[in-house]
């Protein structure tokens, strides 16, 4: 099986591995990112074409094409239709399918155990385990994010169940690795348990921690692909898989750090601990309300405005309206900028993606370090559905779970306007002293509607 492929196939795999790396490199800079995915796609075409011509493909050609047609058409339509804010679950879905494909390869090869040496079988088993976990775990994450499933914590003694299952899985994997005949029944048990493991891993994780978990599964799927690449003697798979695994692992760490959580915390005790800290509703006695017209005129006659978008903007899909508001203000000579906190919203870059979708210029978007330096010069800071990222208690209250997280210092601006629906809190479930701050005025209502009201108000000024 190994080394039976021909020179040109080897060459094609080599080039596709190179293209994947080059593509990933370009993807990691905003300017060249789009050509990056094209280059990676070229590598993919090459690898797929080479595989068709692979000497080990002895039959089933039509079946292969048929399977590709089904999978391709289904996901093409799906991926074209989905709205941008549902991207995380789509990534989870496709990622899970990739892990599942790796597991499928493993099971086919383990059914033909005699064809492989022990090191191949070991990695096949390892890849199958990881692939299965990524498969079922990602699919459940998809279902939870899409609102299809609301599994809670199924076991009261999860830790023990984890360990027990792992022990059985590893035992089965050991047997499968070191015998050179196929054991379909053991294999089935192995797969069922591995799939269950993924379900158990995802089920207790809170919705907001999902992006981190999805990134972890992405890395896992990459590793599974790399291992199955070794089993099949396909270096393109090995290189691409390892590349994704390493990149994904780093990305997972970066994402977890950005939301001020440790990965172990998310995985083992992810019962939304912060949410339990403060379940009492905030007392809004001291909040100064403002109506849309007043808010709009304050901004229309300001010189420097900063808009701070948060999760609420994403929920209400207000980004297009926000861009419209921005343009109106700029026509009046107001300088409008956007301040993006690294963990605003519910996934990394959430706000950037939304603002980009709405066509906000890249240059207007500033990160926390840049904008905090300028906050003192700002006349009006408009906070749209954000809470934790402007929560003053992060600065002062040492007991706050947010303590130590840098926030956007909107209270340094001359005045602050907050748009929110009611007495809801942010992801961390905490009171926000900003709302009671002397400079702050709050306008209640759905973010999109509030912004629309402000737009109308500004138009009526002329």
């Amino acid at each position, binding site marked *: 099986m190994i080394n039976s492929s021909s020179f040109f196939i080897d060459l094609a795999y080599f080039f*596709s591995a190179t293209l994947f790396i080059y*593509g*990933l*490199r370009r*993807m*990691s*800079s*905003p300017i060249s*990112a*789009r050509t990056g*995915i094209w280059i990676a796609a070229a590598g*993919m075409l090459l690898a*797929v074409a080479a*595989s068709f011509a*692979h000497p*080990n*493909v*002895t039959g*089933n*050609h039509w079946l*292969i094409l048929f*399977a*590709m047609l089904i*999978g391709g058409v289904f996901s*093409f339509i799906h*991926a074209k239709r989905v709205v941008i804010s549902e991207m*995380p679950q789509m*990534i989870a*879905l*496709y*990622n899970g*399918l*990739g892990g599942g*494909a*790796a597991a*499928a390869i493993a099971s*086919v090869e383990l*059914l033909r155990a005699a064809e492989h040496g022990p090191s191949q079988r070991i990695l096949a088993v390892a890849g199958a385990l990881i692939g299965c976990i990524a498969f079922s775990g990602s699919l459940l994450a998809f279902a939870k994010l899409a609102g299809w499933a609301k599994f809670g914590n199924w076991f009261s003694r999860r830790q023990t169940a984890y360990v027990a299952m792992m022990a059985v899985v590893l035992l089965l994997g050991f047997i499968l690795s070191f015998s050179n005949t196929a054991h379909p029944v053991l294999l089935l048990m192995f797969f069922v348990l591995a799939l269950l493991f993924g379900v158990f891993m995802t089920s207790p994780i809170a919705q907001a921690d999902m992006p981190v978990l999805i990134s972890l599964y992405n890395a896992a799927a990459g590793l599974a*692909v790399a291992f199955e690449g*070794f089993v*099949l003697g*396909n270096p393109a*798979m090995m290189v691409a*898989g*390892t*590349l*994704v695994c390493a*990149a994904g692992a*780093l*990305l997972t760490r*970066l994402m977890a750090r*950005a939301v001020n959580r440790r990965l172990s915390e998310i995985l083992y005790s992810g019962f939304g601990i912060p949410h339990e800290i403060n379940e009492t509703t905030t007392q809004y006695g001291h909040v100064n309300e403002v109506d849309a017209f007043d808010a709009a005129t304050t901004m229309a006659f300001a010189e420097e405005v900063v808009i701070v978008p948060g999760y609420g903007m994403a929920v209400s899909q207000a980004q297009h309206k926000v861009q419209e508001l921005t343009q109106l203000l*700029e*026509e009046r*000579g107001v300088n409008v900028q956007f301040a993006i906190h690294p963990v605003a919203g519910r*996934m990394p*870059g959430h706000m950037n993606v939304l603002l*980009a979708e709405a066509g906000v210029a890249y*240059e207007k*978007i500033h990160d926390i370090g840049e904008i905090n330096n300028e906050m003192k010069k700002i006349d009006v800071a408009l906070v749209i559905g954000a809470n934790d990222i402007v929560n003053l208690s992060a600065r002062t209250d040492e007991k706050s779970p947010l303590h130590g997280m840098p926030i956007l210092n909107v209270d340094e601006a001359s005045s602050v306007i907050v748009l929110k629906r009611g007495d809801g809190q942010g992801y961390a479930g905490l009171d926000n002293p900003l709302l009671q701050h002397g400079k702050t005025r709050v306008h209640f209502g759905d973010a999109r509607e509030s912004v629309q009201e402000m737009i109308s108000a500004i138009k009526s000024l002329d």
Partner: protein
Amino acid sequence: MDAFVALYLFMLAGIAGYVLIANVPSILHTPLLSGSNFIHGVVLAGAIVALGHAEGTLEISIGFFGVMAATANVVGGYVVTDRMLAMFESSAKRNKRRVEEERRQLAERHLTDADTRDASKDSASDSTGADA
């Protein structure tokens, strides 16, 4: 393939992946997640080979599932990533276009303060039109 060679490939590709991501701005985290998700869709290359030499109903059905799932990974991953990145790009391009437009207009007519405000209003509605 020699196990040691595999070790080198794993080590080197892992380092490449790590270093390439190391300095990425957080704005790109989600597109990169999606993009690397697409890249591991190369599992399709393996799934094709697996189905291509599968024999018997069991192997063939598993292989069929594998190819189907892998293709979904590839196609869906590509479309989603490209859509996300297209938004970045169009925003950058749009912005460039607007800036050029404004600069051109400002160069053409040297206006008073009040007139300039009108001009920038024109250019803004121009670019709004182009967006649609």
